[in-house]
């Protein structure tokens, strides 16, 4: 079985090797685009803002719970800093390489200093603190310290993820059309099916090829992101976002490869396959625009492929439980698509199906 799969995989690689422009584009695209965007996003002020407010019952908590962005990042760190001084709550908000600490204090006294935070951040020498004391919580507070931060999420992490959505789609799209619809166009599919090689093996071999070409731009992009992080000295918090990109895009690649393979076998010609892929590409863009305009937060959004990736990239975070759901939903839909491909290849529809 493995011998057959490996043989199909290597033979497809030989086929793709002919089209060197596609392979080069898969490397070049992330190399050029990611540093340019990240460079712009992270060349801004990266000081840590510490905003100290008085304890005023649960006003701070109300603000946190009313802010769709802030509550995603909130957690209590009072013990780690100074148990005696900070009365009840700390909010840590991370936007790419930005940190805002909102501190609610019991009295009008701040006896903690920057070095406390320094210790908390594992002595990150590149973090510069900007402490603003005695900020009152009024109508401008939310706008100044919470809502404005949303824009940097849009421009930073979100943009990077959108690039990955595009490059991890367009590269394998060319490959999948060639190895699936191309078999029909070149009239080799009949010979292939007549070999009595289990269809399952044919699908796995071809799927692995598409998956490989989906991971090439992802891997290149991730390496470039780390290099960019090193150049711009963005620190550990930025690298956490790199991890989020990997977490969000990896399942997307698994799903997208299955989708592209199925689409390829459904199409009669390479051209027809590419035409459907273009439509799907437009669909991704429309979903993006829709998600930016409408801030939707319904539970079902977590299990709808692509929509969920955009949703979590806009939010800039994903909890472990939600990530499990996210991963499972992508795996489930990828499995469904591969099963449909199997069904298609098992039926004669594969010879004359059209888009």
């Amino acid at each position: 079985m493995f011998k057959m799969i490996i043989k199909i995989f290597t033979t497809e690689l030989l086929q793709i090797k002919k089209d060197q422009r596609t392979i080069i584009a898969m490397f070049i695209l992330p190399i050029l685009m990611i540093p340019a965007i990240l460079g712009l996003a992270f060349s801004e002020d990266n000081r840590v803002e510490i905003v100290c407010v008085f304890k005023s019952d649960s006003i701070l908590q109300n603000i946190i719970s009313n802010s769709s962005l802030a509550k995603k990042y909130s957690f209590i760190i009072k013990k780690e800093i100074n148990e005696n001084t900070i009365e009840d709550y700390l909010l840590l908000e991370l936007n790419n390489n930005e940190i805002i600490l909102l501190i609610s204090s019991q009295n009008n006294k701040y006896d903690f200093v920057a070095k406390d935070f320094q210790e908390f951040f594992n002595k990150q020498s590149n973090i510069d603190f900007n402490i603003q004391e005695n900020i009152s919580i009024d109508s401008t507070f939310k706008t100044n310290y919470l809502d404005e931060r949303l824009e940097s999420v849009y421009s930073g992490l979100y943009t990077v993820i959108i690039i990955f959505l595009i490059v991890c789609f367009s590269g394998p799209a060319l490959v999948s059309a060639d190895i699936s619809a191309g078999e029909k166009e070149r009239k080799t599919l009949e010979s292939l099916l007549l070999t009595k090689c289990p269809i399952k093996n044919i699908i796995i071999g071809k799927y692995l090829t598409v998956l490989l070409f989906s991971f090439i731009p992802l891997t290149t992009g991730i390496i470039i992101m780390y290099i960019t992080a090193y150049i711009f000295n963005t620190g550990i918090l930025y690298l956490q976002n790199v991890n989020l990109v990997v977490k969000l895009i990896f399942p997307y690649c698994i799903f997208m490869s299955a989708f592209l393979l199925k689409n390829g076998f459904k199409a009669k010609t390479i051209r027809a396959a590419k035409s459907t892929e273009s439509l799907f590409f437009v669909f991704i863009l429309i979903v993006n625009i829709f998600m930016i305009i409408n801030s939707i937060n319904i539970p079902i959004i977590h299990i709808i492929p692509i929509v969920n990736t955009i949703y979590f990239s806009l939010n800039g975070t994903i909890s472990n439980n939600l990530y499990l759901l996210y991963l499972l939903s992508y795996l489930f839909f990828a499995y469904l698509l591969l099963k449909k491909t199997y069904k298609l290849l098992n039926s004669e529809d594969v010879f004359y199906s059209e888009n």
Partner: protein
Amino acid sequence: MIELNHISKIFYPKKYKSQGYKSLDDINLEILPGQIVGLIGLNGAGKTTLLKLIAGLYKPTYGEISIKVSYVKDYRVSMLSSEQGLYNHLSVKQLVDYFGTLQNKDFSYQDNDTKILIDYLKIESVFDKQISTLSSGWRQKVLILLSFINNPDIILLDEPSNYLDFQGQKQLNTLIIEAKKRNKYIVYASHNLFEIERIADSIIFIHQGRVIFYKDKAKLYQEEKINNPETTLIDIIKRQVPDV
């Protein structure tokens, strides 16, 4: 035995909408081993569809196909068509190796049967060449090699002599006759009536998706040539279907 019982095949492409296009209509056939069955018919008569149904690439809309190869449990089918494509980016050697792996066989050049076949078809000279650089004749020879290399039990040939020179045609005929001697099932579809007259043991004539006749060649000639010894296959066909 290959048995086709009331086989009909209807395609439903978009342009025909719900009605569909009937390619084969109520076909009943019995194909025996060790016989070369010639399949003739006009363009679009349903010859290729019939071959693809036997190969298992298509499934009948109505009816049933039963294939029982007495001496093996898991029979092998090969189909050779002049329209068939090849993997242009591979060399002949890589292609043979690829198909060998997919059929769970090692078609290495050292294998005796493979060597005999390659030597016989004189393919050795192009063995390391890329398929895309080969002429149509050589490509057809490579297809013949792939069709016979796995010692198939059912051999379906659709215009197999296209692009072949006289040497290639002779080689093909020899391979077919060898397969016949080994009691294989052979269906040979062609437009070339002389070819069919020469090689087939029995002849199927399909017209507009229906079998007009399926007879043993000797019997067919015996019946039709009673009055005129000069009668050819084309005359027999014209008698059955005057508008051909």
